[in-house]
C-alpha cells in the first residue's frame, strides 16, 4: 500500500499492474490471488448478510387474525361509538349504518380512546384528536383514522377486516 503511494507519482502514465509486472515475476499471480481472496470475502459477506436477514425475519407469526368478530348489531346502541381495546377497533352505529375505524393512532401507534363528553376520539400519547368519522381535529397525527371493511356474517355477527383500510366510506345496514 505504501509502495503504491510512493511510486504512483513517479510513473503517472503507467497503470500499476503494468508497472508491477516489470518489478517482479509473479506480481500478476499475487494480484490475481489477492483479488480472488477479496472477491470470495465479499461473496461470503453478502451471503452472510442475506442469511442473517432471512434468519431474523420470522416465517411464522403467532399474531391475532386481522379479521375480528365485533359483535351482534344490537350490542351497539344507536348513535354510539364502541371501542374494542383488544382488537383495536371502533364500531360506530350511525344514522347511515354501521362502520368501523382503526383505533391505533396514525401518529406513533398508541391505542386511542373514545371520550363521550367531548364527542371525540383522543390519543393519550401525544394528544391527537379525531371526530367519530376518523377525521383529525387536533394534534400531530398525519392521517385520519382508517375506515375498515365491515360486513354482516351469516351467523348475524358484524365482522371487521383490520388489514383492509377503505378508500371510500361504506356503511352496513343491519
Amino acid at each position, binding site marked *: 500500500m505504501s509502495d503504491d503511494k510512493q511510486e504512483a507519482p513517479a510513473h503517472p502514465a503507467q497503470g500499476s499492474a503494468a508497472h508491477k509486472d516489470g518489478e517482479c515475476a509473479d506480481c500478476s499471480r499475487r494480484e490475481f490471488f489477492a483479488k480472488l481472496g477479496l472477491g470470495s470475502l465479499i461473496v461470503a459477506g453478502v451471503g452472510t448478510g442475506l442469511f442473517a*436477514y432471512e434468519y*431474523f*425475519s*420470522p416465517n411464522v*407469526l*403467532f*399474531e391475532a387474525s386481522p379479521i375480528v368478530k365485533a359483535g351482534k348489531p344490537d350490542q351497539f346502541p344507536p348513535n354510539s361509538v364502541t371501542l374494542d381495546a383488544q382488537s383495536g377497533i371502533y364500531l360506530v352505529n350511525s344514522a347511515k349504518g354501521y362502520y368501523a375505524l382503526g383505533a391505533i393512532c396514525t*401518529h*406513533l*401507534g*398508541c391505542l386511542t380512546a373514545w371520550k363521550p363528553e367531548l364527542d371525540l376520539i383522543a390519543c393519550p*400519547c401525544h394528544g391527537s384528536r379525531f371526530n367519530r368519522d376518523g377525521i383529525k381535529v387536533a394534534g400531530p397525527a398525519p392521517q385520519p383514522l382508517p375506515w375498515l371493511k365491515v360486513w354482516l356474517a351469516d351467523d348475524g355477527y358484524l365482522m371487521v377486516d383490520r388489514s383492509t383500510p377503505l378508500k371510500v366510506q361504506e356503511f352496513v345496514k343491519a
Partner: protein
Amino acid sequence: MAPTIKTEWERIRNSGVWRSIFRSGSGASNLHRAEAIQQNVFLHLFSVKIRSRALEFKPTWFLGALTLTTFFILVVTGILLMFYYHPSVPQAYADMKDLQFVVASGVFLRNLHRWSAHAMVFLVFAHMFKVFYRGAYRPPRQFNWVIGVFLLLVTLLLSYTGYLLPWDQLAFWAVTVGSNIAKAVPLVGDKVRFLMLGGNEVNANALLRFYVLHCVILPLAAVALVGVHFWRIRKDGGLYVPEKKTL
C-alpha cells in the same frame, strides 16, 4: 527480626508464585512501577506515566471514570437480575414484581440498576459536553471522539432496550412509539420495524429480541468500544491537560 505485615507482604511479593503472575515483583523504582502497569493485561491499556495534573478534579471532573463506574454497577446488578427474570409474556411482568416484593434485596438491585442507568446516560452527556467545551476532541484525539459518539449510541440503545423488559404499560407503549419512529426510515422503515420486533406488533418476539440485545449484544459492543476508547487515550498522548496559563 520478627515478621511484620510489611516484611511478610514483601516475602509474598518476591515468591515464585507471585512473580510468575506479576513479573515486575516488588520494588519501588520507576522501572518497577512502569513494568507493573505495562505488564498487566488490564492496566496496560493505560499510560505508565501521566502528568499529575491529569489526576486532578479540574481537567475531567472525573466524568469518564464515573461513567465507567456506573457501567460496572449496571453489569453486576444486571447479571444478578437475570437470575430471576424470564423474558417471556406475561412472566416478565410477574418476575419484575417478584424482584420488587419477594426476592431478598431484589428491590435494591432493581432500583440500583435503574438509577445507575439514568446516571450513566446523564454522565455520558456531561462527559461529552466537558470534552467538547474544553476542546479535548481536537486532533490527535478526533478518532476517540468518534468512538465516544458510538458509545453514546450504545448507551442510548441499552437504555431503550432495557425499558421494554419490565413489560408494563409504560414499557409497552414506549416501545410501540419507538418502533413506529423506526418505521419512519425511508424505504426500509417497515422492514426495520419488522426485524426489530420480530413481528408486526410488540409481543413475545419483541421482548426476547430486546432482552438478547440488552443483555448480550449491546454490552459486548460497549465493552469492546470502551476498551478501544481507553487504549486510544494512551495512544493519543494521554488525557487532554492544557498548559497552565501564566497570569
